[in-house]
C-alpha cells in the first residue's frame, strides 16, 4: 500500500538500469542521457510540488502516510515525488443517499428510475403490516480526516445504518400511523438516531436532514387500500345526499303546513263573517215582516218568482191526475237540465 516505497523503488530502479555498466562508458552521448534523466526528474518534482483545492473542498495532506495538514481552498505547495500525498474531500457540499428509488442523472425535470427496489423500501410496521417507504438522507462531511480514516466505508455504513434505523422507527409504530400522522415524527427520530450512530463511529459525517418520500402500502395492496378510501368517501357522500334531501324537503313541508293553517284561518273568518252578515240581514227583514206578515209574505213570493221566471229555461205546469206535464211557456229551446219543483 505504501506509495512512497513504490515510488522510491520505481525511481531508483529506473536509474539503476540506466546507470548500469555499459560496454563503452566513454562514448559520446552519455552525458546528455544523464542530463535528460535529471531534467525529467526536475520536471516531475516541480509538477508534483503543488496542488489546488476547489472552494467546496478541503485537502488532507499526508506525509509518508501520516496526516500532517488539512488545507483550505486555493493553491498549495507540498513535498514532491509522492512524499506528500493529497486527498480532496468535498466538505462543503451536501451529499445525498436515496433509499427505495434512484434519481437518474441531473436532468430537469428530475426523473426517477422505474425499477422499484423492494428489498430496500419494504419494511414491517409494528402490527406486522408491510409498508413501502422511500426516503432520502442528506449529509455533509464535517471532518475530512475522520471521514477518510475512521471507517473504511463510511457511506456504505451510512446506508446500512439508515436502513436499520428507518426499519426500527417504522417497526415501532402502527402501519396506519406510519402512512398518515407519524411521518414527520419518524423523519426526525431517524435523523437523530442516525446521527447518534455516526457520532459513535466518529466518522465525521453530519446528517443534514432525513426526508420521507413516498410512504405507501405494498404495491399489491394499494388498489384495495384505495378502495377503502373511496368507500369512506362514498359513505360520506351518501350521508350528505340524504341530509341534503332532508334539508330540502323539511322546510318546504313546514311552509306548506303554515299555508294550510293560514287558509283554514281565512276560511274560519269568512264563515263567521258570512254568518253574522246573513243573520243580520235576516233579522232586519224579520223585524219588518213581523209588522205586516201576510202582505210581506205574498210580496216576497211574487217578487221572487218575478225575478226568477225570466231566467228559467222552461216552466212546466203539473195538473193533478195527468200523466205528462203541460208546457206553459216555451220561450227558449232549452234542454231541461235541472228540475226544481215549486210548491
Amino acid at each position, binding site marked *: 500500500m505504501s*506509495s512512497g516505497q513504490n515510488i522510491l523503488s520505481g525511481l531508483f530502479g529506473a536509474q539503476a538500469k540506466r546507470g548500469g555498466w555499459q560496454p563503452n562508458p566513454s562514448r559520446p552521448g552519455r552525458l546528455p542521457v544523464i542530463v535528460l534523466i535529471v531534467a525529467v526528474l526536475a520536471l516531475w518534482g516541480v509538477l508534483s510540488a503543488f496542488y489546488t483545492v476547489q472552494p467546496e473542498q478541503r485537502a488532507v495532506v499526508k506525509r509518508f502516510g501520516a496526516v500532517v495538514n488539512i488545507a483550505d481552498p486555493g493553491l498549495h505547495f507540498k513535498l514532491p515525488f509522492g512524499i506528500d500525498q493529497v486527498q480532496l474531500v468535498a466538505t462543503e457540499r451536501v451529499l445525498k443517499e436515496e433509499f427505495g428509488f434512484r434519481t437518474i442523472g441531473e436532468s430537469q425535470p428530475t426523473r426517477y428510475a422505474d425499477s422499484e427496489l423492494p428489498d*430496500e423500501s419494504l419494511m414491517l410496521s409494528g402490527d406486522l403490516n408491510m409498508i413501502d417507504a422511500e426516503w432520502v438522507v442528506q449529509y455533509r462531511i464535517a471532518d475530512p480526516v475522520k471521514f477518510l480514516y475512521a471507517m473504511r466505508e463510511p457511506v456504505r455504513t451510512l446506508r446500512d445504518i439508515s436502513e436499520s434505523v428507518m426499519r426500527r422507527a417504522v417497526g415501532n409504530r402502527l402501519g396506519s400511523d406510519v402512512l398518515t400522522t407519524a411521518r414527520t415524527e419518524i423523519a426526525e427520530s431517524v435523523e437523530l438516531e442516525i446521527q447518534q450512530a455516526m457520532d459513535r463511529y466518529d466518522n465525521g459525517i453530519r446528517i443534514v436532514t432525513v426526508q420521507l418520500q413516498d410512504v405507501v402500502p405494498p404495491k399489491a395492496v394499494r388498489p*384495495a387500500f384505495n378502495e377503502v378510501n373511496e368507500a369512506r368517501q362514498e359513505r360520506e357522500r*351518501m350521508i350528505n345526499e340524504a341530509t341534503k334531501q332532508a334539508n330540502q324537503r323539511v322546510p318546504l313541508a313546514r311552509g*306548506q303546513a303554515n299555508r294550510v293553517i293560514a287558509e283554514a284561518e281565512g276560511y274560519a273568518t269568512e264563515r*263567521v263573517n258570512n254568518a253574522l252578515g246573513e243573520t243580520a240581514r235576516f233579522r232586519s227583514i224579520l223585524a219588518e215582516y213581523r209588522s205586516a206578515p201576510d202582505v210581506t209574505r205574498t210580496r216576497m213570493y211574487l217578487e221572487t218568482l218575478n225575478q226568477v221566471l225570466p231566467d228559467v229555461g222552461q*216552466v212546466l205546469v203539473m195538473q193533478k191526475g195527468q200523466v205528462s206535464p203541460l208546457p206553459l211557456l216555451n220561450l227558449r229551446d232549452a234542454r231541461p*237540465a235541472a228540475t226544481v219543483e*215549486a210548491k
Partner: protein
Amino acid sequence: MNRINALLLLVVIAALLINASTYVIDQAEQGIVVQFGEPVGSPVTEPGLHWKLPFVQDVRRFDKRLLVWDGDVNQIPTLGREFVIVDTTARWRIVDPLMFLRSVRDEHGARTRIDDIIDSVVRDIISGTNLEEIVRSHDWKVALDEIDEGDMVRSDVDLGKPKKGRAQLEKDMLAEASRLMPSLGIELVDVRIKRINYIDSVRRQVENRMVAERQSIAERFRSEGQGRSQEILGQMERELRTISSEAERKAAEVRGKADGEATRVYGVAYGADPEFYAFFRTLESYKAMGANTTLMLDSDSEYYRYLQSTRRR
C-alpha cells in the same frame, strides 16, 4: 567517466538499501514486522516512515479503521413459525493485529469466521423470538382507542409491548457474537438488523390477507353509508308526515270552530222565527236558478192559481 559511474552505483546501492530498510504505514493502517514469517516486536500503529532490517524483515499491513461486515441474507423461522428474511450488518475492527495474523491471517479469513459466528448467533436469536418482538422496540406503545376501524391495523396481531425489543436483541447478538472475537484479534462494535421481511410466499399470503381485510372494510363503509342514508331519509319522512298531519289537524280544528260559531250564530238568529226562515230561505234558493232550469209548477200552486184567475179565494 568511471568516477561518475562509481558515484551512480553508490547512489543506486544506497537507494536500494534505504528502500529495503524503511516502510511507510498509512494513516489508515497498522503493521506488523515479520522476520522470515515470524512476527517481531509489537504492532506499529503510528502512521509515517519506519525503519526495519533490510531484506530479512517484511511488513504485514492491516486496516486500522472500522470495517463493515455485511452478511448473507438468511431465511430464518421465528418462534411463531413465520419464515422471515433477515439481513444483518456489523462493524468490526482489528484490535490485535498479532492475534489477527496468527488466527485468521487476513481479512478474507476473518470475514469467513465472522460470517459463521454472526450467522449462527442471528439464527439462534431470531428463531427463539417472535416476529413482533424483533420488529418493535422497547419504547413501543399503541393508543388502542385512537385506532379507527378503517385504519390499516392488522387485527390478528397482538399489539402488546415487546419483552425485549429490537435494540435489546441487537445488543444480545453483539454480546453473544463478541464472545469469540477476542481470540481472533477482532473487536465487534455493533451488530444491527438491516432488513427484516417476510419471505416471498409469506409475503403474498400477507398481501392477500391485507387485500381481503381492506375489501371487507370498504364493504362495511359502503353499507354503513347506505344504512345511514336510509336512516336519515326515514327520519325525514317521519318529520314530513308529522308536520303535514299536524297542519291538517290544526286546520280542521280552526274550520270546525268557525263552522260551530257560524251554526250558533245562524241558530240564534233563525230560531227567532223558524217558519219565516224556511219561507225566506226557500225563496232565496229559487233565486239561484239559472237558464238551464226547468220550473215545474203544480196546477194547485199559488202562482199558477193567480195565473188562471184573479178571483179572490
